[in-house]
Every structure is written in structure tokens, then in C-alpha cells.
């Protein structure tokens, strides 16, 4: 059984009188420990797919299952609690609350757990160390560079040790060097810590870092390719 199962998913949006069919019977599996790059032109449904996996949105029909739990059937209250334990999400921009320090931002998901204060401090410290920002905990987002902000967001996405880490164009607004840092970090998380990662990206070079690339076009899976270079690097 795959960790993430997308089964015959239909998804359409209603905009005014127009109906937009994003997915018409999409089926995808993602294994535990996989590192998948989602590619495709703008509007092909990449973000929508991530949102469905994260339970931020519901399919019109079909089933989304993560680690055996049927995400598409949960109530909003169940979803919130489930998301806190199972999903780490990183957006393209605006991931951090500007009035909280990097440390406090990373700690947020842990406030939804029963961990003691001491355990939380330890977890946040480890997460910040992993992303290479161990000395920036007391910095506010505006005191961080774009790359550091995204790495802080990744630290928050991993701090509660979720089942899946989802990233929607996390390098979309970063310069080349920062992008490389972020991608290297993701690769390390996948290899060393065996994290399951799904990343949406426009950048073919970025996709090469993943073990698997999925190409979406108008909501259809048009290509599925195991990267050779990704695993080698």
C-alpha cells in the first residue's frame, strides 16, 4: 500500500457560470520515503493536488488516502488535528508570522501536541540545526534572507515529524544559490531522515533532485519518470 493514494479523483471549481474541471479521474501513488517533483504548466492543477493531499481542499469525487487515513472523508475539525500530526506544508512565500521569531514560528506545530516545554525546546533546536539556522532562532522573519525564511518554513514543516512534507514552489522566489541550498536540504531530509517529500516546481534542475518526477498537463498525469541523477547526487 502506497503512503499517498490518489484514487480516481475528480475536482472541479465553479467560477461564475463556468465550470473548471481540474482533475477527471486522476490516480497516483506515492511511496513512503519517496521524493516526488510535480511539474507542469501553470494551471495544470499542481497546487490543487497538494491541497487535496493536505486536506486543505476536498475532491469533487474520488478518494485521497494518506498513510491509510481517508483524508477526503474527514470533517474540518478532524482535518485540522490530522494535519497537525501528518502534514508539513511550505508555500512559495509568506510562510512565517512576521511578529514571531524564527524559533516561535518553528514551535507553532508543537503547540498542538502534548509535548512538554523542555521537549519542545529540544525539537525546535534540532529542526533549526537541521536546516542550518541553529543560531538564528531569535531572528524575526524580516531579519532573515529569502532563503533563510524558506529554510525556517521547512524547519517548521519537519518539527512535528509529519508523515508527508508538501512544498508548493518553495524556491519560486529565491535566487539560484538559495534555491540550491533549499533543494540540497530537501534531498538530505529525504535521504538521511527518510522523509516523504512532494515538491511542486517549474524548474527542471530542481526536479532533477527528486527521485521521481510527475508531469501534469491539464489535470492529467502525462509522464512519470524516475530520475537517475537525483539519487546519485
Amino acid at each position: 500500500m502506497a503512503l499517498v493514494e490518489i484514487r480516481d479523483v475528480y475536482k472541479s471549481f465553479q467560477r461564475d457560470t463556468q465550470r473548471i474541471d481540474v482533475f477527471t479521474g486522476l490516480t497516483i501513488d506515492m511511496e513512503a520515503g519517496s521524493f516526488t517533483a510535480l511539474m507542469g504548466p501553470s494551471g495544470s492543477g499542481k497546487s490543487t493536488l497538494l491541497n487535496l493531499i493536505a486536506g486543505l481542499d476536498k475532491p469533487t469525487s474520488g478518494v485521497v488516502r494518506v498513510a491509510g487515513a481517508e483524508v477526503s472523508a474527514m470533517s474540518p475539525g478532524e482535518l485540522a488535528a490530522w494535519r497537525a500530526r501528518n502534514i508539513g506544508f511550505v508555500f512559495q512565500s509568506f510562510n512565517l508570522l512576521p511578529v514571531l521569531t524564527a524559533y516561535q514560528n518553528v514551535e507553532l506545530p508543537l503547540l498542538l501536541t502534548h509535548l512538554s516545554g523542555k521537549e519542545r525546546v529540544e525539537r525546535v533546536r534540532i529542526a533549526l540545526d537541521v536546516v542550518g539556522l541553529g543560531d538564528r532562532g531569535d531572528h524575526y522573519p524580516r531579519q532573515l534572507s529569502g532563503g533563510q525564511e524558506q529554510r525556517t518554513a521547512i524547519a517548521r514543516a519537519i518539527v512535528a515529524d509529519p508523515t508527508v512534507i508538501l512544498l508548493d514552489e518553495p524556491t519560486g522566489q529565491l535566487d539560484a544559490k538559495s534555491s540550491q541550498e533549499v533543494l540540497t536540504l530537501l534531498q538530505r531530509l529525504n535521504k538521511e531522515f527518510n522523509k516523504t517529500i512532494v515538491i511542486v516546481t517549474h524548474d527542471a534542475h530542481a526536479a532533477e533532485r527528486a527521485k521521481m518526477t510527475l508531469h501534469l498537463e491539464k489535470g492529467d498525469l502525462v509522464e512519470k519518470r524516475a530520475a537517475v541523477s537525483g539519487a546519485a547526487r
Partner: protein
Amino acid sequence: MIPLVYNARSMMQRPVSTTFTAVGIALVVAVFIGMLALGQGLRAALARTGSDRNALVLRKGADSELASGIGRDAARVLAASPHVATGTDGRPLLSPEVYVLVPLPRPNNPTAVANVVVRGVSDQAWSVRSNIQLVAGNRPTSGRMEICVGRKLLGRFEHLDIGASLHFAGRDWTVVCHFSAAGSAFESEIWAENEQVMPLFRGEVFQSITFRLKDAGAFDDAKRALEADPQLGVDVHRESDFYAKQVGILGIMLSVLAFGVTGIMAVGAIFGAVNTMYAAVAARTPEIAVLLTVGFRPRQVLLSFLAECLLIATVGAVLGALLALPVNGIVTSTTNWTSFSEIAFSFRVTPLLLLLGIAFGVVMGVVGGFFPAWRASRLRVIQALR
């Protein structure tokens, strides 16, 4: 729970709107406390005027001293009643009193006058009313045109210094003393000897007789016995009840005013809070999306924004309470609608009123914060991110 530090720091990010909102609530709370303190002061002054150990006798059917009249015969019969306590000198503790209103000119505006109570008392009055104390001078001498002035009148009218001469009822009266009466309505009166005042006004009649009950617990017996006597033709009131009742319509009016005026102001302040919070929610849409994505529940988002508004309101409410505090003790006056005389009393800001005011401010925060917070909690992440 979403940490409060998030709300506290977010408030600081928009100091101007936060300050305006808090100050708006502070003003409402201050006015609210001030107005209630006014009513509280009036109530306290009147409640302290009467003693539950004293009985006040009026003519049957009269509901105020002004409307009452009791002849000398009745006064003599009452003095001999077994229900009247006797002093250490063996004389009954009883004061037949003449009660008249005298218009005195206001010092700053001589064409305006205020009715001041002149009470002609017997020498026993000073013992019957146990809360009366001389603060300056000596009591009026029997047989002389001398007056003792309640301390709340001082400074509010002229010619009231010791030794000064005050003109009313066609005579000049010498001020020989000032007295206090534990903040009660007596402090707004001028006292003289009853036999000096009586002939100048309505002739051979007293308006009321106040006596010390021999047994304070036996008031009902005394009342029944005296009211049953057809020759007396009197009503007997417990003195404390009689004055407490005078709060009546005035007290209600003050309360209505307090709640009415502050109610209208509160609507304004609440709109201020609503505005501020809606703006905050709109500006922080991406932040709310992040919180929901991390796994905070809509309910927790609602509580967070509600807490933020409450934080502002509480700061405002405490500020308002501090603003209201200095009015405590300020003396003001109003017309007592039962006796048509002017009564001076102090604002009384009690701890309970402060708490009430702060609670009012907090409620404003909840009301003003609820709908914006609710909107924040209804936000859908996918909508917020587009």
C-alpha cells in the same frame, strides 16, 4: 492554543489604531464609572442621613417634611410617650423641628438662587442625631439668631464663615458653627433653634418630630401605638427608611442616564473595535492561512482574534477605571426632588464600581471582537492563498 504573544505583538504593529480603540473604550468606561459613582454618592448620602434608631414623625398623609405640620400639643404628647428614649439628663431624646426652604443667591451668579434647607431644631437634636459633629465654633445659643452651617454648603454660598452674618427671612443671622454629619444630607442644611425659626415662617407649627427609639427593635410597636392615636394624627417613619426612599426617582434617573449615555457611547466604541479588528483580520489573511495550514482549528483562530480584541479592551477598561478614580470624593449637588431642596454629595467610586466598569469594557471587547474573529475563523485556506 495560538500563543498570546502573537496577538500582543500584532497589536503593537498597528499602534495608532490599537491606541484609538483602547482610548475609546477607556472613555466609555470612565464615564460609566463616573455616572454610577454619582448615583452611588447620592444613595450613600441619603442612606447615611437617617438612623435606624430614630423615628421621624410627620402629619398623617404627608410624604415629606415640607408638606407636614404638627402642633405643639401633639409634640408634648409625643415627648411623654414611653417609646421615646431618655438622655443621661433624664429628658426625652426628641427634637420637634421646623423645616423651611430658603433661597440663597449663588455666589458666581446673584440672579440664580438655590433652595437651602433651614432646619429649626431643639437642643436635643444634637444628641438625637448621633452623626452630627461640630467642626468649628460652638452651638447656637438658645434665644439668639444664630445658625450652624453644614460643611457641604461651605464654599458654595457666601457669608457662611464663622462670625459672618447671613441674611434670610428678613433677618440677619450670625454664623456660629460648622458641622459635619458623616457625609449625609444634613451637611447641606443650615440649623438654627426651632423657636427662632418658627415665628418667621408658618406660625405655631412644627414640620416634623424626630426622636430616639427607646428600643430600636420595637419600631413597629411604637409606630402602631402612635399612629393609632387619633389626637396625634401622625405617621411614623423609621428615619433611615424615610431618607433612603428619597433616592427614588432621582436615583432611577441617574441610573437611566448612566446606562443611556454610556450605552450610546459604547456603541461608538464598539464600532471602533469592530473596525480595527476587521482591518486586522483583512491584513492578516495570509497569517490566518498559515495558522490553519499548520493545524490550528478555526475555533482556535476565533479565540485568538477574540483574545486580541479583549486584550485591547482590557487595557482600555483599566485605563478608563484609572481615569475615573480621581472623581472619587468630588462634591457635586442636585435638587432633591422629594424635598425640593438642594443636596450636596460626593462622587463615590467604590471597588465594585471599578470592577463593573472594567467588566463593561471587557464586554465591549467581546462584542466588538466577535464578528471579525468569526470571519477570521471562517477563512478557507485555498481562498486565502489565491
